[in-house]
């Protein structure tokens, strides 16, 4: 598989993946990575997800609070805001439409 194409595809989906993972409930950075990477193919890394969390927080899609950690420094827990949920909804609708259309197109190509 072409690496550039895979990277571009993941680049477009990383924000949706992060918002969707946080829709399941608040999480701290490492926990969130674990949630995303539990699904084969997503495989996001730390320098991709961590700066994105900061950007989404700045944009008002996430809120962050500090919580105690059993061993180390306080953990930062991220949670979706209303605006974040709206964005997730929009992205999900667009993704589903695109996905269905693409599936139909591929199926059409297979039938001919």
């Amino acid at each position, binding site marked *: 598989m072409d690496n550039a194409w895979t*990277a571009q595809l*993941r*680049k477009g989906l*990383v924000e949706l993946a992060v918002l969707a993972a946080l829709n399941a409930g608040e999480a*701290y*950075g*490492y926990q969130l*990575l674990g949630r995303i990477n539990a699904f084969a193919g997503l495989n*996001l*890394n*730390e*320098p*991709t997800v*961590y*700066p*994105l*969390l*900061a*950007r989404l927080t700045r944009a008002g899609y996430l809120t962050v609070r500090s919580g105690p*950690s059993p*061993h*180390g*420094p306080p*953990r*930062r827990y991220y949670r979706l805001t209303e605006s974040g949920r709206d964005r997730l909804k929009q992205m999900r609708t667009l993704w589903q439409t695109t996905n269905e259309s693409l599936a139909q197109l591929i199926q059409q190509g297979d039938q001919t």
Partner: protein
Amino acid sequence: MNTSMNMQSQTYDARKALGGYLERTDLLLARSGLSRSERDETLGQIVEQFYDLLGVPIGEADQELTEIAIAKLAPERMFELNDTMTTSQLSRAVWNRFCIGGIVPIFLNDRGHKRVVWGELIKMLVWLGLLLAMVVTFLNMMMLGGPSWRWIASGIMFGCIQLGLWFRFTWLYHHTPVEALPRAEDWPAPRLHKIRYMWILTVVGPAVLIIALFPTAYWLIAAILSRPAWPIDNGLFVIVAVPLGVLLYVLSMWSALQRRRNTRRFYNWDRHINP
């Protein structure tokens, strides 16, 4: 007593190991184009992750546990930044590499290394050329006392060469895969320690650079003294040469300060993550 001392030593070793890892990661993230705040966020989260991976309070972690936790942080994954690299990150990557690039050795064990090496060489040529252009301008001003066709022609020639090299340099960076950058595990920490005394260069370096140009200037002054007109009397010479000298000094000082600031950040990683 011995147990307490042993635990203190383990804490120190674990913190030192984590500090070293973060220094290297910060440097490489900077070279990959992340801004200061993005790097702080990433490093802060990595610290959290490290404690999670450690599984025990840092005072109770022995060397083996620490090494396992750091290995799980998987430094090689830090170089897949092209997943989310934006144009601003890319331009920062070029800029950061310029600011800290001089002290970072180039490794030849990665895919695409040739382009990185060529990029570094071209960068050096660009700056050497700019310095030469300034010296030539300075000399022309002293010799001729003002703009002339020769002065304009040499200016255009240098400008074209520099612009050509600059475009080539930019193109190389646009086409250099992030994975081609040096890997964290290859970063030789002792090399970083050598620049602890960079502050001396910060102050003395620019002055040395200016003084180094003096022999040429003295030679010219000697040649000029035999001329009937002393070029310094020429208003244009003063208008052009003095700001040029000041600009050269400011640029050198600023560049040195940038390097020093970056170096300090690597050593004070815990201060900006956990103020």
